[in-house]
């Protein structure tokens, strides 16, 4: 297996995530924490996020679509989603949460709906990109991956 080629792909992929604004410095901070005791820490935390966030998105949609709308609950849910997204460095999702929050505060239903749709798309894209990234990393293996393991 051509590890150097794979490593190049990994580095290029990660760089594109940053350049296109999907991820921010927090993702690097998490990668810095990886060590022998938890070599797959970032993948595990991202998995936690991807497992937890769909529930939040569904609940957000319910808060918007029920009548009368529960803007207080909406704010609480978006706050939670924003927090988790921020903790893994998912900056596009974090920013969209801010937009959704603002629409909620204005009680702008149409704005909320638009923002939620955008959020769902961002979530799907992020999931696909990060899953590809971790799949590549797994091919290279923790010892061979100079990108995320500590020396």
């Amino acid at each position, binding site marked *: 297996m051509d590890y150097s080629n794979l490593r190049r792909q990994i580095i290029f992929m990660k760089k594109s995530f940053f350049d296109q604004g999907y991820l921010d410095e927090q993702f690097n901070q998490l990668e*810095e924490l990886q*060590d022998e005791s938890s070599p797959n820490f970032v993948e595990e935390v991202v998995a936690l*996020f991807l497992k937890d966030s769909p529930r939040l998105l569904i609940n957000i949609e319910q808060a918007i679509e029920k009548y009368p709308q529960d803007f207080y609950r909406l704010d609480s849910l978006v706050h939670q989603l924003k*927090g988790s997204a921020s*903790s893994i460095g998912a900056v596009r999702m974090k920013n969209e949460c801010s937009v959704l929050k603002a629409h909620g505060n204005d009680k702008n239903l149409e704005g909320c709906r638009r923002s939620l749709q955008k959020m769902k798309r961002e979530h799907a894209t992020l999931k696909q990109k990060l899953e590809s990234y971790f799949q590549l990393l797994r091919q290279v293996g923790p010892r061979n991956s100079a990108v995320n393991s500590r020396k």
Partner: protein
Amino acid sequence: MAAAAPALSLAPMATTVTAAAAQKAASPKAAAGGDVRKVVPVMAAAADEVVVQELHVLAVDDSVVDRAVIAKILRSSKYRVTTVESATRALELLGLGLITNVNMIITDYWMPGMTGYELLKRVKESSELKEIPVVIMSSENVPNRINRCLEEGAEDFLLKPVRPSDVSRLCSRIR
């Protein structure tokens, strides 16, 4: 981040125990439900003697993602960490004596049910718990909020997302 011994700025309570006692201490207690995990890092100093670093942090956060991150940051700094998903749960477990020897509590500010601020107040009002330093984390930079927490006796206030460098800054303040 260099995995230096936490002795750089704080004084972890390092006690020398016999291997047998350390073995007993290292086995995790079963917790009464909730997301409670304990890790005791053990460093071998000699054949039949172990030095146990025991600075124990209780981390409270309703977000499963944030719990994982804060626990990892703390464990990388060689703290023993117990994570709990709510302030009420934290007080319950502390009251029942299921969480003991806590050297620091680090809690999210905004949580459903009891907030981190309320947890802070309860801790400072309790004769058993009031000496424990409490650190508040929040994703929002609200000066009034920060001041209120500090006035209520919070040790520090960290903005989320929390970074390893934030934690090393805390080290120097914790006895």
